[in-house]
């Protein structure tokens, strides 16, 4: 029986975020969603449970509303969910976040932890390696598939090559693709089962870390300033491409053909 952790993140729905005329990002009222990479991690964890057995616990750190993404993980089939919420977590950079997550992973006794290879809001991709380093677990990054082949074999995608690596547990796995045949949507059955599962709430004191290890105090970086970047401005020429040949001509004249 594996104790399987999945760390996910709540992010604003990118299709609903827009840029105002003045170039500022409009996030007000934008619905949030389970980060797509976190979803891939969840699907990989569920597949791992199916093949190797165990219990899947979804974890996120954030305010009360972040419970929504945990509900979603439960609806897709996670067994348990933990919301790490505490005002003292606020302002954590990646290392401070990783400390809190690592402490929780220890407390829960995860022997394998799945994360998205990055999150679509921050895109730092730093949490999985930091988590592995802090926990002393093996790190398997950019995993696109896991299979049992006389040991657990992970396919990892690097820039110019991919490799099949034999995984040793305990491990942190960062995932870059959902397994083939992952559920497209939660089923009514899963959703009913999920509605009976409570989301556990965990605060800083529960994971036994001192204040100075998390939040702003525990961060090794600080944001000095933030400036808005103006979007690309163009005087757009619009071409009717309802006739594909006319559209094709309009593209080809750009390359002198």
């Amino acid at each position, binding site marked *: 029986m594996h104790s399987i952790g999945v760390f996910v993140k709540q992010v604003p729905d990118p299709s609903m975020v827009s840029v105002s005329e003045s170039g500022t990002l*409009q996030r007000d009222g934008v619905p949030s969603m389970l980060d797509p990479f976190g979803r891939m991690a969840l699907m990989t964890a569920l597949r791992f449970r199916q093949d190797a057995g165990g219990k899947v616990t979804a974890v996120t750190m954030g305010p009360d509303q972040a419970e929504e993404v945990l509900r979603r993980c439960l609806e897709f089939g996670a067994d348990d969910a933990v919301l790490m919420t505490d005002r003292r977590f606020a302002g954590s950079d990646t290392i401070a976040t990783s400390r809190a997550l690592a402490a929780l992973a220890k407390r829960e006794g995860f022997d394998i932890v799945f994360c998205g290879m990055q999150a679509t809001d921050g895109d730092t991709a730093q949490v999985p390696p930091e988590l592995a380093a802090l926990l002393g677990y093996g790190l398997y990054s950019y995993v696109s598939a896991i299979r049992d082949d006389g040991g657990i074999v992970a396919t990892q995608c690097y820039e110019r090559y991919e490799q099949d690596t034999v995984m040793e547990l305990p491990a942190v796995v960062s995932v870059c693709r959902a397994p083939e045949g992952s559920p497209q*949507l*939660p089923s*009514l059955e*899963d*959703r*009913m089962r999920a509605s009976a599962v409570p989301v556990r709430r965990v605060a800083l004191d529960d994971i036994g870390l001192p204040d100075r290890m998390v939040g702003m105090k525990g961060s090794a970086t600080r944001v000095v300033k933030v400036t808005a970047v103006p979007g690309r401005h163009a005087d757009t020429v619009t071409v009717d491409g309802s006739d594909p040949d006319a559209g094709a001509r309009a593209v080809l004249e750009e390359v002198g053909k």
Partner: protein
Amino acid sequence: MRSIVPGPESPYTIDECKIRGEADLVIFPENAEDIAEVLRDAYGKSIPVTVSANRTGLCGGGVPDEGWVMSLEGMPGLIGMGQDDEGYYVRIGPGVSVRTLTDTMLLKRIEGLTDLTPDACGRFRRDPRRFFYPVDPTEMDGSVCGNIATNASGPRTLKYGPTRDWVRWIRVVLPDGRIIGIRRGEHHAEGRRFDCTVDDVHLSFDAPGYDFNTAVKNAAGLYAADGMDLIDLFIGSEGVLGVIAEAEVRLTEWHPLLSVIAFMPDDDSALSLIDDLRDSTVSPEFLEYFDCASIDLVRRVSAGDPTLLTPPEGRCSAVFLDMDAGDGARMRDLADIISSHGGSPSRTWAGSDAGDRRRMFEFRHCVPKSIFDYVAGLKEEMPAINKMGTDMSVPREQSPGMMSFYREKLEESGLEYVIFGHMGNFHPHVEIILKDMADLEKAREVYDVFAAEAVRRGGSPSAEHGIGKLKRRYIGMMYGSGGEEDIRRVKRYFDPGFILNRGDMVA
């Protein structure tokens, strides 16, 4: 005022029925006074004017036979916001689509809107609840004013009613260029007789004598009833009496929704499931039916498109519904009802996440869209071919009989078909998959037989697509020649020269 001469492939002389019309000029008014000027000018020169906005109509209402096209796409969109005893409302012009209205209101992105009542925008923004415009005509890119002119409905009519129920005020430019504002509740007929003064314009005429069928979903002909509100004559009039230049529509409180697609073993189990759900504690917002052939169609399309949801393996039909997401008891009731008709909660999709629901609606849209694309492909070889889909509703007790009638006649004719759509309102779409021109002929015959049968059973031959130019013959079928003449009489009262949207509804 900007105007252009349309070319042979101009987007302004065609709509979603894909029949190409002809016009000498396309004019783009930017406000109600511009519209009045165009109409006065046209009147003086006896030139017919066809009005269009986003050209999403399905019956050629916005397709000109001759004369000018007046495109309202350059008119204002979102204008202002107000609040009264019944809640918030929005003032809009023809330039806004249903999608933009809905998204703007849900996200409360109302910068730049005027307060129609003191601090309405501020109160709306600060209100912890969220609001939306609940009419969902499926085609979200249509103009809201166009929706009002056609009294658009859609799947959610089951819960919220058609567009008519959400309109509180309209500003109409009459064919002679006079502009009137009609507020709901201010001008009623005595019996059928209107005798009233609206913004200094005296109106004195009789509404049509027939009773507009409101027992079923119906978009055929002018609204008519004893003591009716003047606003209802214009809503759904397909623009033959005047041009809606501005309107106020109501919003309602939004709540999180759960979308459900239950896959069922065969056509009849899906139909009986819908029958059971209609009055159940589940309280669905709409109930959509897909027969097994529709699901097969989706399966073929989604096989080549990974962004689409793929139906489960094996032959199956499906029922699609939206319900309140917050209620666990309803979810259990739903699961029980699905199981009692041979379905299973594990073969039922349930999505409340915005992205999931978007994909489920794409799944639904996949059926008409793939037929549409198929026909568009056929058009290259057979330019005269058209999509043949029914749009007929019948009263509840007639629904099973009508469904058997559809199947029987289609099997007899040997045509290939799929049946899907708004079974919650007893309003399925029968889409005939044409292979050649001979099929088209057969389909036209069958179609007329269906229309007559729907009327015979107390239903409407045009439940939501309207009459436009393509379905004029249904007016006589429904109301007889007397009723048709009544419509013509009202039309003549407002537009003696028949210059406005000539050829729509009545000729």
